[in-house]
């Protein structure tokens, strides 16, 4: 599987990253080299191997559905780049 500059461009949208032309060029070659290295996994036969997503097998951890105090809104909004004391403010989502 070879990686094209166009592929990298598409991934940058999925990743919500804006990349410069230079970044697109260097990432195309760097990611290509890493993926090429990773290719070696294909020589392993993994049929029937159970995927391992986690090191410790923990199933659902339950807790009581009890109301507990959470953080104060103003404390949380203090780290927000733009807000009106109540809501997060963002550029227009719909329309222009």
């Amino acid at each position, binding site marked *: 599987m070879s*990686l094209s500059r166009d592929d990298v461009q598409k991934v940058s949208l999925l990743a919500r990253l*804006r990349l410069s032309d230079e970044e697109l060029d260097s990432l195309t070659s760097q990611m290509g080299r890493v993926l090429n290295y990773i290719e070696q996994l294909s020589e392993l036969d993994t049929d029937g191997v159970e995927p391992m997503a986690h090191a410790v097998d*923990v199933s659902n951890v339950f807790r009581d559905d009890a109301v507990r105090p959470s953080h104060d809104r103003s404390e949380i909004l*203090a780290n927000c*780049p733009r807000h009106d004391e109540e809501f997060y403010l963002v550029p227009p989502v719909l329309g222009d």
Partner: protein
Amino acid sequence: MSLTDRSATELTSLLASGELSSVELTRAYLDRIAAHDEAVKAFVHVDAEGALARAKEIDARRARGETIGRLGGLPVAVKDLLCTRGELTTCASRMLARFKPPYDATVVARLKAADAVIVGKTNMDEFAMGSSSENSAVQQTCNPWDLSRVPGGSSGGSAACVSADLAPLALGSDTGGSVRQPAGLCGVVGLKPTYGRVSRYGLIAFASSLDQIGPLARTAEDAALMMEVIAGRDPHDATSVDLPVPAYTESISRPLEGLRLGLAREHFGEGLDAEVETAVREAIKVYESLGAKVSEVSLPHAKYAVATYYIIAPSEASSNLARYDGVHYGHRADEKATAVELAAERKALEAAGDEQGLKQLDAPIVRMYRQSRAEGFGPEVKRRIMLGTYALSAGYYDAYYLKALKVRRLIRQDYDAAFEQVDLIAGPVTPTTAIRIGEKADDPLAMYLDDIYTVSANLAGVGGISVPCGFSQSGMPIGLQLQAPPFEEDRLLRAAHMYQQETDWHRRRPTL
């Protein structure tokens, strides 16, 4: 012997007996930081005033005869990805340059409850992605043994500050070797606990199925002390395991009888520097002289560990770092400038009648996300987000991510089989000693390959420790790595302590 030469264990007993005040000790470390950190650059923030106020308060409580916590006024340093309530926690990233968490990480809360004095936050590779601390957006931490060399990473600041005696104990985090590798390169002890042993609550996530917090210290005994404070079940982290925490500091002086040490033949192959190999083999002889039985074991999938890791870790990272959208917290691009630029692009496309281009043009909020992330993240973080997004994207998921999860299982099975024959696996931490700053900066893959001996423990979820075991001709520290079955930190610490009783590598100090 000056105060800052002493071990954390000695210092806590001096504090407990009242021979030493926390203010006196904290001042001694702050003085040392003031004198040397300009050269080492281990800290991204030092809170001298806060630390002294805290020390004073602990001294006052002690004077009143109140019960004092385990660390009793001992200064400690904390990697800057562990949340400290109301204090900057930046992950050495522009993205979080002004982030002040509204809560303490569980390990930080436990340090505070044990009456530690947090003197500052340490430098790291941005979002813990890197092995040299070169990916910090703040500064380059230098190796105290040779300032032209890297301290390793990503917990480079924590390793350098312990090595340079700027703090007796520090916390780091290890996702693919980020505690053990800098510890090895700076000549200190670094423990990566078993996944689930220490709560990750308030650790800014990189790869959640691999991340684990661990101590950096001069001695195994000091690491044991830190582990007793931080380990154990935490309701805030559902992956923290509900097992009793052994009294590590009590058992540590009991040598391991009939220890069976395994050498994985895959750890002594091509790429291992001769000086590193010699030092590690000498260390194993020390164990033999103490009665350990040494045998060869095999971890047949070890050679696939780096490839597996560089799918799983970036995949998890791309998902975890999606939260940095410029909306809730973290960096947001200048909205006016972004809007003006977008409008100009639209106008140009309209003028050119480029229908396709117009269709592909970002919506205003998407442009804000993309621009904020472009400005907030450094090159390595972008690289890993891109790799992970690619590996998880439609059409590639099975070939990359799912494949990697299966190989991860095989790597774990290798460990399970090896630990049926031996109690610990011993080998090198890194293929070479610390590289020069900039030496591999343009070659990400070469840098990734240096993680060869450390990433497997994270993938398998087992514990590992790095212990100083010698120096190269050029005077750079070399580390011995020991790995143990899950939840056998006690065994790792006791084995490391046995070795440190016989050797004095950990007593050597860099000249600053």
